[in-house]
Structures are given as structure tokens and as C-alpha cells.
């Protein structure tokens, strides 16, 4: 409970700092919105031309897009510090964090809360509402809960990827741009249900990086394309991805403490 309170205090500090640069804050907010609005335009024009893809209708695709985008945006808001971990190590901020009598990972997460991503969140909410209203999904209580679970599962998976990225920063600071494939790439291509990219991609996204566990399989159940009730539990399993990521963090931290670089 104490940690929650402390996080909230940090959150207020970030808010205060940001309000010192209101203009810049709002411009970035709008910019974030515009960039992902482009992606929406792409989806819109493709779906008006083709009407369906792999049996998914326009409103279903929007629903899927909004779930991925929302999970990614929430994760980016909360885990932004891990995404910029190389600077936290580079400028000595991490040493300062190690001087505090609290869990270091927790303090790293506290050190940055990026509220400019809310521009994108607004878009995700609008699409979610549209998708819920216009798709022909038979809404049961389970399906409503499932949407929430999918988003939370997604936050966990993206969070784990950010954590892995941060762990790699303990070992090297070079050439880590390829990690974008898993973050920006997943956001970019997670706009459609992962199954449409074919078997290989689905395999990778099931067993290697569990994107499909919170996105594709539960979405099949959500849209009634599959009756397999197990699919609705998969978002919970996707959250397990945090465990290896966390173990890697422990390893990275130990490495950092023995090399100090």
C-alpha cells in the first residue's frame, strides 16, 4: 500500500513538472495523436477497399486495433523509464536510485511517467467505443471482462519487453534499436488480428513473444469465431512473460553492480 502511495506522489511530481511546460506538453500530446491517426487512416482506407480481411470486418479490426493500441499506450506511459533506460544509466541517475532504501526497479518506474501518450489513448478509446457499438459481437459478461483482460495482458507483455530492453542496457548500449521490432513493430502490426500474417508469424507470436496470447486467440473467442473457452484465459498466461523478464532484470542488476558500467 505504501508503494502505491509513493507512486502516486511521484505521479503528482511528474504532473507538476509537465505543467511547467504546458505548450510543449500539449503539442507533443497532439503530435502523438496525429502519428497514430495516420495508422488509423491506413486501416480505414484498406478496409473501405477490401471490406474484410481473413473474415474480420471493419468494426472488428478497429476493436482489435484499439485493444492493442490501448495496451501499448498504457504500457508506454507506465514503463517509459525502461524504454529510456540507457539515459538513466548514462547520466548516473541509476546510481542515485541505488542509493535509495527502496526497490530499485520500483524507483526506476517512478522516475518517469509519460503523460503525452494520452493523445494516443484518446484515439484508442474512441475506436474501442466504435468497435463495441458497431461490431456484431454477442456481449456477455465474460466477453466484457475479456476485453479488460486482453488490455491488461497486453500491458504486461509490453511491460515485459520494455523490461528486457532495460536489462540489455546493463550489458551493452549499442545496437539495441532492433528492440523496436517488438515494441513499435507490435503496435504497428498489432492493429490487425495477428493470425492474418500467416502461420510463421503466429507461431513466433505464440511461443516466442506472447503477443497472440492477449490479442489473437482471445479475440477469436470475443468475436465468436471460436468457441474454445480456454482462449479467454490466455491473456492471464501472457502475463507470465513478466517472470523471465524479471529474472533477467535481477541478473542484469547483479552484472551492473559488479562492473559499474
Amino acid at each position, binding site marked *: 500500500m505504501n508503494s502505491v502511495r509513493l507512486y502516486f506522489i511521484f505521479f503528482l511530481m511528474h504532473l507538476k513538472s509537465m505543467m511547467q511546460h504546458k505548450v510543449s506538453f500539449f503539442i507533443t500530446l497532439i503530435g502523438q495523436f496525429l502519428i497514430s491517426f495516420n495508422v488509423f487512416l491506413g486501416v480505414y482506407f484498406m478496409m473501405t477497399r477490401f471490406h474484410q480481411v481473413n473474415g474480420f470486418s471493419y468494426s472488428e479490426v478497429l476493436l482489435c486495433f484499439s485493444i492493442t493500441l490501448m495496451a501499448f499506450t498504457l504500457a508506454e506511459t507506465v514503463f517509459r523509464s525502461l524504454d529510456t533506460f540507457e539515459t538513466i544509466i548514462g547520466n548516473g541517475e541509476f546510481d542515485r536510485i541505488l542509493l535509495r532504501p527502496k526497490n530499485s526497479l520500483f524507483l526506476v518506474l517512478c522516475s518517469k511517467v509519460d503523460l503525452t501518450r494520452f493523445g494516443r489513448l484518446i484515439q484508442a478509446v474512441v475506436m474501442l467505443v466504435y468497435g463495441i457499438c458497431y461490431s456484431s459481437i454477442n456481449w456477455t459478461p465474460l466477453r466484457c471482462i475479456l476485453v479488460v483482460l486482453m488490455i491488461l495482458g497486453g500491458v504486461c507483455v509490453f511491460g515485459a519487453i520494455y523490461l528486457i530492453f532495460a536489462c540489455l542496457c546493463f550489458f551493452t548500449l549499442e545496437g539495441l534499436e532492433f528492440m523496436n521490432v517488438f515494441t513499435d513493430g507490435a503496435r504497428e*502490426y498489432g492493429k490487425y488480428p495477428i493470425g492474418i500474417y500467416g502461420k510463421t508469424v503466429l507461431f513466433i507470436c505464440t511461443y516466442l513473444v506472447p503477443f497472440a496470447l492477449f490479442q489473437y486467440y482471445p479475440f477469436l473467442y470475443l468475436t465468436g469465431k471460436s468457441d474454445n473457452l480456454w482462449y479467454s484465459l490466455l491473456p492471464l498466461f501472457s502475463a507470465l512473460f513478466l517472470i523471465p523478464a524479471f529474472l533477467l532484470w535481477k541478473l542484469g542488476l547483479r552484472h551492473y553492480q559488479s562492473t559499474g558500467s
Partner: protein
Amino acid sequence: MKKYWSFFRIRFIRGLQYRTAALSGMVTQFVWGSMEILLFRAFYQASPESFPMTFEALSTYVWLQQAFLALYMVWFWESELFNSITTGDVAYELCRPVRLYDMWFVRGLAVRLSKAVLRCMPILIFSWFLPAPYGLTLPGDVKIWAVTILSMTLGLLLIVAFNMIVYMSVFYTVSSQGIKLFVTSLAEFLSGSVIPLPFLPDHVRTIVELLPFASAQNVPFRIFAGDITGPDLTISILKQTFWLFAFVLIGRYLEKRALKRVVIQGG
């Protein structure tokens, strides 16, 4: 001319130094290209008759886009230049015996080319080996190659000229960040980097193709892919030339006016 060449060389060599970043970027672009093609394959299977170009042409377009990303992406801004204007450091640049517009233009070219040179070949070769229709299809006609290179050059110059207009506009406004973000996202979509322009509905497409951004990557990649042929090809090249001249003229006009103001205000 010689000083611009040496300036170009310095920037170019500097750009070549980030090898690990280039390798990493290449991996990213391979994945990006593959995902893009798999995505279009799904749409192709959904309704082949709605596909506005051949699948080979689409694949070629996507791979060229990934290989030459650095040449045509609007968002390769150099924050150094923005900063030098907002902080007033630009005054130092004015002390040199070269024209600001030309120097920054050359700099923009060098940065983009050095990035592209490292990354393009492996992507092109790799995609050339991919099985049809997912790989790069090379045109048999030598003329097409020549026209593509001409058109690519025009497109690159156009994008750099566009960047110059935005840099110059910073002299006139307080918030460069706002313009940058807005203009970037608009130009990205209109140039066909989100989805190729033929996939737009016909009435939208007619308008978009008249706009300057359609003259950047859209034209050379589609010429190479065999999607623009005959009289359309000539018209497209003419449009590219027209917009290039327009952008350069606008940029140089803005520069002249801006520098006058800088001189009057004393930097």
C-alpha cells in the same frame, strides 16, 4: 562548389560511423518489410480483384521503401538545425562564406545518403532472393532503370527541399515542435509511406496525386515496379520537376527574408 563537396564528404563519413546502429536498423527494416508484405497478402487473399496493382509491384514497392527509408522519410529532422535557429547560434553559420540554404541542403543530402548507403544493399539483395511474388522484381528494360534513378534523385531533392522550407519556417514561429509534428504526419501519409497511394479510394487518390508529396517516393518506386508507364510516366516526372523547383524557390525566398530579419534584429 568545392567547399560544398568537402562539406558533403565530412557529413557523409560521419554518417557512416554508426555501424552497429545500421546493422540493427537493417534487421528492423527486414522485419518491417516482411510484415508489410504479409499484411498485403492477407488483403490480396480477401479480395484479389480489389487489389489496385499487381502483387509483384506491391512487393517491389515495399522493399524499395524499406531499403531507401532514409532517403524519403520526412521525419529525419536534424534537431541541431532547429536548435541553432531557436537559440540564435545560426548567426555563426552566417559568418561563413557560403549560403545558408545551400549548406544545409547539402548537409541534409549527405545525412540521408550516408544512412541509406549502408542499409540499402543488404535489403535489396535479400529481397531479390525472396520467391515471387514476395520479393523484389527487377525490370528488364534498361530505360526503366535510368528513369527510376532520375526520378529517385528528383524525389530525394524534393524531400530535402521540403525539409528546408520547414527549417526556414522556424525563423518565423515560436514553436517549431508543433509545425514539425503536424507537417511530418501529414506529409508521411500523403507521400504514400503509410499505404501506397493506389490503395486510396479513387476520388481521394486523384487529389493526393496532384499534391507535392506524391512526387517523392511514390513515383520512383512505382516506376521501378512497372506500375507507372507510358504517358503517366512523363507526366509524373514533369510533376516531380515542377514541385522540386517550387519548393526550392519557396525555401530560398523564406531564407532571404528570414536572414534579413536576423540581420536587422542583430541575430
